[in-house]
């Protein structure tokens, strides 16, 4: 099912949680809404579900305007952050709930509900746990029960709110892979919310980066990492440093001194670069500063450098340095960014 979000605005007591958000989600796509807390990602998810209603704008499911349909009529599968499993019901009763509460005309007979529940349990690899209660399950198992319960109603789209937020790191990674396979097998249009960029980049076909109620960028993992379109995306996704610079006659100047890189038009703004996109150099035209700390990070070594030209306040940046040629604390390091972007003010 294709989902179209047109100019959605949502206010809570005059506080705007979403400003004019538009987004098209293709059928069968796996989309991540990524952003820090307060960015509006969960609000957007709840609006798609019909758990909240927009102040302005429309949401289309295919050709149908669903903006004013209730959550019951939208037929969406929603997996809650803390699962919201019914604690007084067994696993089987939880999964069968959506079928049991259907009006009698469309309610499948008991035997069929039972069969559907056991098929779904198979699908989420929890066969044999039918009669357990939620508090007898591990976090990962609860998560999968919640997913099976949402899938039982044959939803048009699947929405997951921080699906792995409450799990420990290892289970999280396993479930992440498992969810991707699950999605590829069932082909449901899926939207999930996360604040974990690794999760979003690894799992999603497209990532929607949000900040302060606005969409900053929509794109593949490569797009948002390699071609960030805003200072926010550049600093939120991955590691980066930024410095205030000016461009004069094509040369980029930091605190009035050329740093050995150039760009077309004259402007002033912030120069962004990632720690791995630098080269150490002996050239005079470069960024230079004192190494204040160095730390080992998995397969790389990161040096923290305070750069300043004489008399100016220092700026703190982080660059990657060779692993096997440790850089001395307090020594002078010179480098040039190899890939960078200047966002003009």
């Amino acid at each position, binding site marked *: 099912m294709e989902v179209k979000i047109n100019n959605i605005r949502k206010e809570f007591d005059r506080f705007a949680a979403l400003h004019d958000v538009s987004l098209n989600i293709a059928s069968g796509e796996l989309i991540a809404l990524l952003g820090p807390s307060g960015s509006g990602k969960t609000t957007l998810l709840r609006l798609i*579900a*019909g*758990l909240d209603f927009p102040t302005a704008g429309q949401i289309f499911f295919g050709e149908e305007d669903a903006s004013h349909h*209730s*959550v*019951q009529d939208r*037929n*969406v*599968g*929603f997996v*809650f952050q*803390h699962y*919201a*499993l*019914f*604690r*007084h019901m067994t696993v089987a009763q939880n999964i069968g*709930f*959506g079928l049991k*509460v*259907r009006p009698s005309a469309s309610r499948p007979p008991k035997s069929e509900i039972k069969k559907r529940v056991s098929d779904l349990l198979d699908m989420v690899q929890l066969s044999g746990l039918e009669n357990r209660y939620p508090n007898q399950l591990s976090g990962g198992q609860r998560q999968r029960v919640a997913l099976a*319960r*949402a899938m*039982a*109603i044959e939803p048009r789209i699947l929405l997951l709110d921080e699906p792995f937020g409450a799990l420990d790191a290892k289970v999280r990674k396993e479930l992440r892979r498992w969810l991707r396979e699950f999605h590829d097998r069932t082909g449901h249009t899926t939207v999930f919310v996360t604040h974990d960029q690794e999760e979003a980049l690894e799992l999603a076909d497209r990532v929607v980066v949000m900040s302060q109620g606005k969409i900053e960028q929509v794109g593949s993992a490569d797009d948002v990492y390699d071609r960030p379109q805003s200072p926010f995306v550049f600093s939120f996704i991955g590691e980066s440093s930024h410095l205030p610079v000016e461009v004069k006659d094509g040369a980029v100047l930091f605190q009035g001194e050329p740093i050995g890189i150039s760009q077309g038009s004259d402007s002033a703004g912030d120069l962004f670069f990632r720690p791995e996109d630098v080269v150490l150099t002996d050239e005079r035209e470069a960024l230079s500063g004192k190494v204040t700390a160095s730390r080992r990070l998995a397969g790389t070594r990161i040096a923290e450098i305070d750069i300043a030209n004489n008399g100016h306040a220092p700026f703190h940046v982080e660059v990657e340095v060779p692993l096997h040629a440790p850089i001395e604390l307090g020594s002078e390091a010179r480098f040039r960014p190899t890939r960078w972007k200047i966002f003009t003010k």
Partner: protein
Amino acid sequence: MSENRRILFRNPADESFTTKLVLVCLSLVFLGFFLFLPLVVVFVEAFRKGGEAYYEALAEPDAWAAIRLTLTVAAIAVPLNLVFGLAASWAIAKFEFKGKAFLTTLIDLPFSISPVISGLVYVLLFGTGSLLGPWLKSYGIEVLFAVPGIVLATVFVTFPFVARELIPLMQDQGTGDEEAALSLGASGWQTFWYVTLPNIKWGLLYGVLLCNARAMGEFGAVSVVSGRIRGLTNTMPLHVEILYNEYNMVAAFAVASLLALLALVTLALKTFLELRFGAGAAGGRH
């Protein structure tokens, strides 16, 4: 040398043995003097002239009428407050609206004003000098000095019990389960019946128990509106007082023993609920 020096590790929040002993003894003496002793006295006095006299005192028509009236009033007031309490706590715990804090305070009102005042309010509302009283009387409906007045006063006084038990429980549980049920296609009623109610049932039962105990035991408010017509508008607590004023000790304590028994049963049920369903029965989650 380490074996000679026994180091005693003590929980920082722990107290010394003497302190504990003093605290425990103080509580025991207090409880014994103010609770246990009176309870014993009630039963001793009730059986002072033997089981026969006890039974006679209860079988006496006026006593029997008082017991029936008390049960009737509780049977009306408790279900009403079950519904009111549920509705109020539902509204307060699950929705945001203006004046919510005010409503919460209002629910506590019967606890904070004297029951006698509560009774007087109804006298002012339905008395002969009021607007409502004569109007209802013209339709043949008596409120004051009749069963409706007693029910009204009892409902008023016992209103907070269910609501106060449920509000923290429902607030704690939030709306997640309800949203999940709705997203699965359940109607509002199905959500309430299959999800909300099972989540709060022990808290609800606990609130109802307390509400019932108070409904049967209420004296102040009821005594103002009842008129104390023997055999007609006397509830058990009122009947006890009348018998007592007539120096009919055995009968007074016999009826009182029934009320004390009710308190004991309530206490036993409450303890059972807490044991069976954990601390959750009394205002937490189970």
